[in-house]
C-alpha cells in the first residue's frame, strides 16, 4: 500500500529476514513495518499506533529491538531482521501461553520479541533476570488486557528457564 513515505525512487536493499536473504526494491523511507507486513506478507508485527508509542511492531534488527513503524527501510540494509514469525522465540512463546500472558493477542508479538531481546541482553551483560528488569525492558510495550502481571511472570519464567 503506497503511503506518503513511499514517494521517492526505489532503491535496492539487501537484508536477511527470518533467515532468508532478500533483495528488495523499495522507496528508502518506506516503513520497515510496511515492508514486512505488505511486501513480505509477515503480518505478525502489528501496528497499534504508528508513532512508536505502543511497541506492537517490535522486531529484532541485528539482535536489537527496533520499532518497525519508525524504522525506514534504508536503515536495515545489510542487517538481519527477525520477526515474531522467525526462529528463537519458542521458549518465550510457550511461557506466555503457560502464564496467561496473551489475551487479545494484539500486543503479544511485540511483547514476545521484546522479551527475547531482554533475555539476550541479560545473557550478554551477565545480569540476573529480575522482575524489575523485566518491567523496565517491557516498559515500551503497551498491553490493555492483562494488567501486565501475567506478562512479567511469563518473561521472567522464560528467562530463568533459559539460564537453567
Amino acid at each position, binding site marked *: *500500500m503506497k503511503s506518503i513515505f513511499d514517494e521517492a525512487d526505489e532503491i535496492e536493499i539487501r537484508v536477511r529476514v527470518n533467515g532468508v536473504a532478500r533483495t528488495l526494491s523499495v522507496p528508502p523511507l518506506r516503513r520497515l513495518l510496511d515492508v514486512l507486513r505488505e511486501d513480505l506478507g509477515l503480518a505478525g508485527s502489528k501496528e497499534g499506533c504508528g508513532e512508536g508509542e*505502543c511497541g506492537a511492531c517490535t522486531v529484532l534488527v541485528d539482535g536489537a529491538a527496533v520499532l518497525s513503524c519508525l524504522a525506514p527501510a534504508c536503515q536495515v540494509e545489510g542487517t538481519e531482521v527477525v520477526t515474531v514469525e522467525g526462529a528463537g522465540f519458542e521458549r518465550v512463546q510457550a511461557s506466555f501461553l503457560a502464564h496467561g500472558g496473551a489475551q487479545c493477542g494484539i500486543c503479544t508479538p511485540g511483547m514476545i520479541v521484546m522479551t527475547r531481546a531482554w533475555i539476550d541482553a541479560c545473557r550478554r551483560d551477565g545480569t540476573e533476570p529480575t522482575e524489575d528488569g523485566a518491567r523496565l525492558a517491557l516498559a515500551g510495550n503497551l498491553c490493555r488486557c492483562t494488567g501486565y502481571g501475567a506478562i512479567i511472570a511469563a518473561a521472567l519464567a522464560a528467562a530463568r528457564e533459559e539460564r537453567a
Partner: protein
Amino acid sequence: MQVSAREAMVHPMERFIGRDLARPDGPAKVRGEAVYVADLRVPGAWVGGTVRSDVARGVLRGFERDPAFDWKRVTFVTAADIPGENVQALIVDDQPVLASGAIEHWGEPLALIAAPDVATLEAALAAVRPRIDPVAPNFDPELSTRVFKSIRIAKGDVDAVFGALPAGAIVVEGTYRTDSQEQLYIEPQGCIAWPPEADGTITVKGSLQCPHYVRKALVRCFGIAPESARVVQMETGGGFGGKEEYPSVVACHAALLARAAQRPVKLIYDRHEDLAVTPKRHPGRVKLRAAFSGEGTALALDADVLFDGGAYTTLSPVVLSRGTLHASGPYRWPSARIVGRVVATNHVPYGAFRGFGAPQTCFAIERLFDRAARELAIHPYALRRQNALVAGDTTATGQLLEHSVGSMQVLDAIARSSAFDRHAWCAPRAGTGAKRRGLGMSFFFHGAGFTGSGEEMLKGRVRVDLLPDGRAEVLAGSTEIGQGTDTLFTAIAAEALGVDTLDVVLARPDTARVPDSGPTVASRTCMVVGGVLEQACRTLRSRVVESGGTWRERARRFLASGGDGSVTVTYASPAGVRWNDATYQGDAYPVFGWAADVAEVEVDVDTCEVDVLRFWTAVDVGHALQPRLVVGQIEGGSLQAVGWAQREVITTRDGRFEQDRLATCIVPTTLDAPRFDVTLVEVPYPHGPYGAKGVGELPMDGGAPAVLSAIEDALDLHATHVPATPERLLALLEAASATPVRRA
C-alpha cells in the same frame, strides 16, 4: 493469587470447570498467526477514509472539491448515496450515518472516500473541504436542555429522614466528578466490506464485539433483510466496550464505499483518528447527600447523577441506568432517592466502556463513605462492613438479595490479605521525607447481565450441532476479544457434554451461521450465554443414549439412526425475577458480583506524583470456571481503574479531544502497574453455569476510589475528582478542604 477459597470449590467430578485449560486461540496469537482485520490480504481492495467536520456544531451546505485533483481516481460518497435510511441504528434514531444537514460534533462523518492506495486517499482527503455554517455549540452538560434519558429511583421517604434526624446523626455531602476515559484497545477500529453480491448480500468483516449489532445497522442503512447482511468477527485486539457500538459506524461506512466503488474496501482507522472520534467513557458529576446515625448506621441517601452524553444518544440511556442503579453502592439504605439524567452536548458522542456508568457512581459513594468515616471517627473498613448489604436485605430498587451475596466474604478476604482493617487510616503520622505512603479501600458490587428486563427482551440463543464426525460444534454470537470466551465455552461444552475438549469445535462468530446470543457486553458472556450453552449441551448429551465406544462413535451411531443432533436453547430469566421499567423498582439484575479493593500509594510530597505500589482485591465471581481467565480480567480491569484514578487524562477543547495521539493519551505501562494480589471468593450462583456470575466489568468499579482513599491517607487530602492528577492534588493542597460536613 490466593486460591485457598477456590480449591474448596473444585468438584471432584468436574474435569474442566475450575481447572485452567490452554487457550484455543493462544498458539496462533503468540506466533503472530492470528488474523486481525488489518492482516487480511484482499486482492483488489481499496482503502477508505472519512471526511469530517472541523467544527463542533453547524449546518452542512455542501463540499468544495479541488478541481485540480482527478476525482475519477477515487470514489466519493455522501448521505445522498445511502440506499436505506440515513440512521445509525442503535437505541434512538438520532445519529446519521453521514451528516446531511445538522452537524452536532467535531469529527462528525460527512462524506467518505475510497482510493486505490493510501497516498491517493490522502491527496483526495486534502482536496475536499466541507462548507459549514457554524452554530454556537454547548459543551456544558449542566446547561443542556436536551435530555436523552432521566431516571428516578425512590425507596422510603428521604425528605422525612433528613427533616427529623436523630440526635448525634451526621449529614455528609459531596460533589464527585469523573472525567472521560479512553478504552485504548491496542488494535484500532477497522472493517473491510465487500460490494453487494448478485443476490444483494453484503459482507463485512471487522474488529468488533457484537456482530448482530453491526448486522442490524447494515440492515437499516441499506434497507435490506437481515439475511442479506453478513457480519464476521475477525480476531479482535481488545474492546473493553469500545467495540460495542462504534464498529457499526465503521461497517456502514466501509459497506457504502464498497457498494459505490464496486470492490472491497478496507476502512481501518489509524490511532490518531481512532482517539479523535470514537466514543469514550461518559464524564460524570454525582452530587450526594447522606445521613448516618452517630453510631454509623446509614439512614438516607440523596443522589443526583449527571452524565454528559455527547452529541447523539448512542448507548447513553443504558449507561445512565447502570450508573443510577449502582449509585447507592453495596449498602443498606432504609431510604434512598437517586435521580439521574444524561444530556446532549456538542462533544463527540460518549459510549460504552467497561463498567458502563457504574465506575462514575461507585467512585462517588465510596468517597462519601470515606468522608463519613472521618466525621464519625469510625474506621472506613468498619463503616463499610456495618452497612454492607447481606442476603435478605433489599437494594434501593427494592430488590431482595437472595442468592450469591458475597459481601461479607470479600470483606473478610480483603482484611486477611491486606490487613487494611488494622491500618490507622488518616492517622496523624510524622511527615518525614519527600515521599509518603498511604492505604485506602473501596467496596463495590456490579450487576451481572443486562439491566432490568434486558435479558428477557434479548432472548440470547446458542446452538450446538453434532458434526458428521461426532464432534460437537458450538454456534454462538459471543465474541472472543481477549477475555477468553473461546476457552470458557470449550470448558463449559466439554464439561456439560461429558466429552474431551478435542470433541468440541467453536464456530467463528459469523451472522450467516451463528444465532444471536446477544452482545458480548455487560459481564454476560459467562453467566448468561454460558448458562444457555450448558443447557444446550446437557440436552444434546441426554439425547445421545447410545452406549459403548467413544463419544464420537456414539454420536455417529446416534446420527446414523436418524437422531436430531442440533439443539438450540433460548435464555429464560430465572423464575421470580421481576423488574418494572416505569418505576425502576424490582430486580435490577439477576445477581451481583461483589468485591473489595485496597490500594497502596506512594506520593511525592513536592510534585504530588502518585505511584500505586500494591493493589489487593477480593472478588466474588460465584465460581471461577477458568481461574486464570478470571484473574486476567480482574488484574486487567483493575489496572484500567488505577490508570483512570490518577494518570489517564482526557480533556476537550472546542469539542475536540486534546489527547488524540498515543504520545499524549497516556495509559499505564509495566512500570506504572502495581503488584496485584487477587483473592477469588466463591459464593455460587444457583442459576449460573456451574455457579458462575459475571466478572468482566466489576474490577473497573473499585480502583479509582481505593486509590483516592490511599492518597487521602498519605496527604490528608480529600480529592473528589478523577483523575487525581498532580496538578489537581497541588491545587487541593493549597486550598482549604471544600466539602461541607455538618452535625445535626
